[in-house]
């Protein structure tokens, strides 16, 4: 708990030209060494938040702090040890991967990065063999990996990745996830990663926040959030129709849905014995009550309102 906070947003908010808040009152705290998952459905405000963190757009309200430096007043110091990719990976298509790395690297280091540094980074994402090809000839997946390579080039302490696996095939996704885990483990990097994929965050993240319609709905360690009071369960009980009707009538049970493989419902853990008692009293036969502890269920329950 005493870990250093490397990235903090304070009441961060953004209104685009329309007066609607695309992001509102977002307070994030990312500690050194975290793999922080920033989860939200399409249009939730993930990219908008990341653009503010990386100084591409100015916040309408609130502020961003990196390594204790205010982004608005000490931009260079704040961003010195930060790198990342925002939305889709774009490059100077008419230049080679190597040249692109030189250009972005020089902007962080103040001098042209060494050839070996660039080749090492490209090696890490498996692009060393294509270093001198124009980026124009790269597939989307290759650009995505080049994006990670250019972010890693200057050995940042915090790396901000906006949906780094979007558009990749399952194999590519797996590789990127493994790379992220490795960066954290071997290079002690702090990773801030946005995603709309629940299993992705579940697999790699240590801490997470959930954003929906521009507002944070939860923040904490992944375990903590999974151990949350709200729990989704799958109930196998017969007769199905009667069981469903009874569950629907109960105050402590919500989101009752009858699917092919049983009844899913949201029940607070402490209420489960009461539900069992009620169903048994009504002469329903309960075969199983299985908790659906996945992030997916949790995610849907907090974002669908």
């Amino acid at each position, binding site marked *: 708990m005493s870990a250093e906070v490397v990235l903090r947003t304070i009441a961060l908010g953004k209104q685009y030209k329309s007066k609607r808040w695309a992001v509102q009152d977002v307070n994030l705290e990312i500690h050194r060494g975290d793999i922080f998952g920033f989860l939200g459905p399409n249009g939730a405000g993930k990219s908008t938040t990341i653009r503010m963190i990386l*100084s*591409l757009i100015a916040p309408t309200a609130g502020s961003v702090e990196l390594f204790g430096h205010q982004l608005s007043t000490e931009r260079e110091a704040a961003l010195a040890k930060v790198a990342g990719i925002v939305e889709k990976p774009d490059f100077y298509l008419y230049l080679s991967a190597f040249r692109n790395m030189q250009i972005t690297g020089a902007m962080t280091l*103040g001098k042209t990065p060494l050839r070996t540094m660039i080749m090492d980074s490209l090696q890490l994402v498996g692009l060393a063999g294509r270093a001198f090809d124009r980026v124009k000839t790269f597939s989307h997946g290759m650009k995505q990996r080049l994006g990670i390579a250019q972010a890693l080039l200057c050995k940042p302490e915090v790396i901000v990745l906006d949906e780094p696996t979007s558009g990749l095939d399952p194999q590519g996704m797996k590789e990127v996830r493994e790379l992220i885990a490795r960066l954290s483990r071997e290079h002690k990097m702090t990773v801030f990663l946005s995603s709309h994929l629940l299993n992705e965050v579940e697999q790699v993240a240590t801490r997470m926040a959930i954003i929906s319609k521009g507002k944070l709905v939860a923040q904490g360690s992944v375990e903590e959030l999974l151990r949350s009071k709200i729990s989704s369960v799958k109930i196998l009980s017969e007769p199905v129709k009667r069981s469903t009707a009874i569950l629907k009538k109960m105050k402590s049970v919500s989101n009752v849905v009858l699917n092919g493989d049983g009844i899913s419902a949201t029940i607070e853990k402490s209420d489960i014995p009461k539900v069992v008692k009620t169903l048994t009293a009504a002469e329903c036969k309960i075969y199983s009550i299985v908790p659906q502890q996945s992030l997916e269920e949790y995610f849907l329950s907090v974002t669908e309102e």
Partner: protein
Amino acid sequence: MFNLIYYELFKTYAKWRTYIGFIAVGLIIPLIMWGMHLQAGHNFVQYQLRSLQSDFLITGNLFNGWSISQIIMNSLWVHVPFLISLVAGDQLAGEATAGTFRLILIRPVSRTRVLVSKYSATLLYTASLLMTIAVLSLGLGLMIFGSGDLLAVDRDMLTVLPEVHLWSRFLLAYSLAIWSMWVIASLAFLFSSFVENAIGPIISTMTVVIGLLIISNLPVESFEPVKPYLFTTYQDVWQQAFKEPVNWSRIAESCGVLGAYSAVFFSMTWYIFKRKDILS
């Protein structure tokens, strides 16, 4: 800073559109030379002399590389701004279109420094284009038509500038032309900061330049009061290099006004760019 400028130049000269300008002047100038060569020049000089009533005695060949180069400077007046805006108008808008602002503006380099390096690259490109015109037109001109004195016509005054002074005259003329064209580059650069596509800045720059050139040069009474405030009124300052004697105070005044315009355009660009939300 030099590193930033180096890479901005690198990006600029790695782009195909940058060479359109060089290719264009590389085609137009030899074409003009060829046309002149066919005419053997005599008609042209005679035309120039016809407007003079005096019985002037001319010795040596007045239709030479120097005069050709001067004619070319006079006739490239609308092409060159277009070629400049092609590159200058793309400097900021091009990065927006390509999405590469997301790559460079998240780096620990202030936007001011990024902008200064881009502006420097734009000015250097403009200078390199004009120097290419100078080298091509003087080089080819002197090769094909030989050297000699330069006949300078100024309203009803005719002066013969001796050959020995011409190198420094042309150096001055091209330096002034570069200074003058930097205003165009600055204007296109400014327009480039508004939008995410290079077509807009190119068209708006050309519209402004042509519109103002017309106002500056039309002998219309009602335009007179605004003329001193238009940069186009001062853009032909390079012609002062061929006046005898050289009117230095006139040159200083023109350069001052042109420089002020460039500075204002750049300051406006900076004000906009510093606050711009990068949404591409």
